[in-house]
């Protein structure tokens, strides 16, 4: 079932159109306010294009500049230099804001309002008609499993319920681009799964999702492309497959009953690890072929040769290291 109010446009058609988000040399420097303090380079000049219908994950340690980038795009902070457009409208203008939905990190809603009151309020601020707000609110509360608590005051909500309501709020105006900052923060595993499903459905409907998260496994699961920020600088960008594939590491496995012979045969090729009848070797393609020949010469039945993949977490830790990525 398509998301309420969303029109499922053809993804290929969408991808051929102009970028949903186009960033050109965006930079943010917080000037020192007192003598003796240094300027903080929160975001170094960044150029990036995100296509319509793409789920884009932004990773980085705390203070790497992830939230600063989102806030620049939404006009919450002002860029020191550079520019950006969202669906062709200058970022931060009312024109671009009419096309976006945003779930901020640590968002706060008026505690005296009930869930449906919050949606009614933010729907009105988005310029929606009362009847449209009412209709969409009911559908979205159903989508995030909050119908039961729609008349409960927000002050009684748990963190997870607040996140669910936040997602409903972000989708209220049927946005073309959705910014989600730590969407599963404080949500239990079942809730996380449900939120991932919602994001998946949004992608299927052609929405562009900009996802900020420090939960690497989550980003890995749902993002088409990922960028890693460190100290305000984008140090890596690519699809999850591109980033996690290791160009010269391979898993090789043979039939399980000949593990001993396999260990002997693979030893000259310097395996990093041998586990029973499988091994991980790091070598170029020619050397891997030599290993294959050697194994077959011994009559071993090769059951698997696959490029080794690193997890996003391994990559992230390699890039970020122990010193974190603090910018601001």
């Amino acid at each position, binding site marked *: 079932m398509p998301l309420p109010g969303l029109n499922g446009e053809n993804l290929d058609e969408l991808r051929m159109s102009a970028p949903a988000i186009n960033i050109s040399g965006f930079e943010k420097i917080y000037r020192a306010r007192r003598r003796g303090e240094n300027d903080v380079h929160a975001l170094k000049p960044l150029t990036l294009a995100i296509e319509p219908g793409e789920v884009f994950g932004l990773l980085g340690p705390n203070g790497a500049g992830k939230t600063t980038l989102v806030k620049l795009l939404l006009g*919450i902070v*002002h860029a020191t230099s550079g520019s950006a457009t969202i669906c062709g409208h200058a970022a931060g203008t009312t024109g671009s*804001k009419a096309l976006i939905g*945003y779930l*901020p990190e*640590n968002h*706060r809603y008026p505690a005296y309002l009930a869930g449906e009151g919050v949606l009614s309020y933010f729907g009105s601020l988005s310029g929606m008609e009362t009847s449209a707000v009412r209709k969409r609110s009911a559908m979205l509360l159903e989508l995030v499993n909050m119908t039961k608590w729609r008349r409960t005051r927000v002050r009684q909500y748990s963190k997870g319920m607040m996140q669910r309501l936040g997602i409903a709020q972000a989708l209220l105006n049927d946005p073309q681009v959705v910014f989600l900052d730590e969407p599963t923060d404080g949500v239990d595993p079942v809730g996380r799964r449900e939120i991932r499903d919602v994001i998946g459905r949004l992608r299927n409907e052609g929405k562009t999702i900009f996802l900020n998260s420090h939960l690497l496994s989550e980003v890995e699961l749902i993002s088409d492309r990922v960028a890693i920020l460190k100290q305000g600088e984008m140090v890596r960008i690519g699809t999850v497959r591109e980033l996690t594939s290791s160009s010269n590491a391979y898993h090789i496995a043979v039939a399980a009953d000949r593990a001993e012979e396999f260990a002997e045969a693979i030893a000259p090729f310097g395996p990093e690890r041998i586990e029973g009848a499988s091994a991980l070797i790091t070598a170029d393609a020619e050397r891997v072929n030599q290993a294959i020949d050697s194994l077959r010469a011994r009559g071993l039945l090769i059951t698997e040769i696959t490029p080794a993949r690193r997890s996003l977490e391994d990559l992230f830790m390699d890039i970020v290291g122990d010193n974190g990525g603090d910018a601001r």
Partner: protein
Amino acid sequence: MKIRALVADTFREIYAKKVIIGIVVIEIVTLVITALILFSGGMQREYREAAQGTNADSASTSGQHPAAPIGSAPYDTSLLGAESAPLPGATLTDSERAAAHAGSSTFRDTAGSRLPIAMHVDGKAMLREKVKGAMAGYAGVFGAISILLGIFMAAGIVSSMMEKGTIDLLLSKPLTRSALLFGRALGGVAAVALNLALFVTALWALYGFASGVWHLPFLAAAIALPLFSFIVTYAGVILLNVYTDGWMLPLSIAYMHTAVLSPFLFSREQTLFSLVSSAALRSVIDGLYYVLPQTADVIKTMSDIIYSGNVSNAMPFVQGTIFAVVCLVWAAWKFQRKDF
């Protein structure tokens, strides 16, 4: 639609705060005490006597307002209407009018005996004068208090909007920063206006039922003028909110100004100038008087309007309007440039 939503939400926010209960309790206690006084035997007797024209004190021509506001200058006898607008029923001859103009407090009645002016006028008019005087005095006191309560109600409205997690969401919506700031401010003003209007109307009704005098200028002036002063002071509070991101300092400064500085600046020639002989310092004091909101002047003018119907001094309104506009434009400019 968007601004209406902002105003309505701000309104709800103010009335959802627990502090509003305290303010309402203060107002109800004030109304109850006022009712007890107005409907007490002594006060009712005074009103009866005034209505019968038998209480010479009730419209004294001594030159002092029957219930002059605290700190206000003595009222002129002309405010009683004895000279410029003879009260209904008063029959003054030319010589008596001249005597009244010269400061005489008596004139001859038709039988030739000398009577105080007040005893010669219509009882109903005398009662009206008495009630107007009491209202003018009362309004002087609660006018200042209602400004302080209004600031207390609304001082946190802009700063709470700028809290992390709230401002991010609001700024992501398709409305300009100025609209956001002024929408919140307008909501604060609307909430204070409603509270003030209800309180003053209740007070006006109490006076009306107790005395039979339904003095409409009280209703208009005691709502509009404290509200004007509140808006002017609140504009300054909003500017400070935007600069400090908080409400405590703006609230303290507003209170200091309304309760202490403004009355002293208003009566600077009698108070501050007697302590300061330096011409330069006197110029600074004068400068402060002309730059800061002239709250005490507005309250004095309100009492004058309630009593005489005349605007004795228009300057505080012109100066206040300029002050408010400058503060709001400045606040909008700063808010526009702010990073959150």
